């Protein structure tokens, strides 16, 4: 599961641009993840502030 730490997120869209599944969307300042997410961890890797975390799954 992808956990979004909204208190850390700076709502910049960097993660949205790299998600191969198109599973992320920024609704103004609120980042949402949908059920297309495969927990690949790419978004968590590139986030400039570390606001994303893949839980219970191996991280890349």
């Amino acid at each position: 599961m992808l956990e979004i730490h909204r208190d850390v997120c700076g709502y910049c869209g960097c993660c949205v641009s790299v998600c191969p599944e198109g599973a992320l969307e920024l609704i103004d300042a609120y980042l949402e993840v949908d059920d297309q997410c495969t927990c690949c961890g790419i978004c968590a890797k590139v986030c400039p502030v570390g606001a994303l975390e893949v839980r219970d799954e191996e991280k890349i």
Partner: protein
Amino acid sequence: MKKKYDLLVIGGGPAGAIAARTAARAGHSVLLVEKRPAIGAPVRCAEGIGKEALAEFVEPDERWISAELKRAELVGPDGVSMLLEAEMAGSKVGYILDRKIFDRELVWQAAGAGADVMVKTRASAPLMANGAVKGAVLDVCGEKMQVHAEVTIAADGVESKFSRWCGVDTTVPVREIMSSCQYLMTDIDIDEECTTFFLGNETAPEGYLWIFPKGKRTANVGIGISGKKSGAGHRAKDYLDRFVRRRFPDGKTIECIVGGVSVCRPLGCTVADGLIIAGDAARVVDPLTGGGIYNAMFTGDLAARVASKAMDEGRVNAAALMPYDEAWRTSPMGLAIERNYHIKEYLIKLSDEKLNTIIHSAKSLDMKDFSTLTLVKELMKRNPKLVAELAVLRALIG
């Protein structure tokens, strides 16, 4: 607010604003939608732009110019610094903008030209008919509405979701996203007319760190690193914090922003039936510098002009919009992207050691006497061990 427009523009950044302005000036009905509640905020930019580039689209105005640049400084991995004065830097000399005001001014001009504008309005799905884009579903403060348009311009920035919903893959490769973080810092000692770039694997792996002056004792201090190099404990913010602690221990951070800049090749095709993709959404950022304001305005303007002509001629399919794709690719901007992509690929593979050697060597030359090409040739003469690398660079520039 109407239900039907000639042109729907998604995104209120420089690409969208200029597109809306151009189309409205050509007499078309235009709606520009921006999902954020305010145009231009939060800023996602270091705000640097060349003087001539800016003047192509808008008259410079002191209300949104924070600083005027006279020189640039390049600092190598070992700390050696090389200064480029205005007369050598050529067109590189420019301004640092205040994009909160600048972006707003551009949208203002679009509105002044007759475009309708809606903020806090998100395009959440395309309207499709027979595979063609016919407008969008808009989420306006919790309510959904449909707006039909002959042509839709996706100028939705780095996220670029709209084109994806229309079937265009806009995914940026991990190694080609610049994961970025920037502080607007004040009460710091800086050269208020100089932009400084720091290179090196310790400082900013496969990217660079910048200090862009914003006026008196104030600057954008930021960094972009390759997504490939980012991870827990070594993210853009970690590198930036380390730099700031050393360089500006007493500085005050009055704004903190994050962002992503694509430094990949542009999309393979930037049009579809009823759709044109412009600005960051089309991945037309300069891959070497990460600069995208000018490229966004250029493609936004071109997109509107091609759409306008296509609408006048009554055909808005991909073939009718294709002149847009062809025109930006063969423009000086398109050719610069292609060339700079190769230079970037070359530079990120250079070791710190080689980078140091090149900067030390270049520093010892009187830069005024050299064009870029003769400079590279001279460097080759002085650094026989680097001939192979420099030959690549020369081929790319020449």
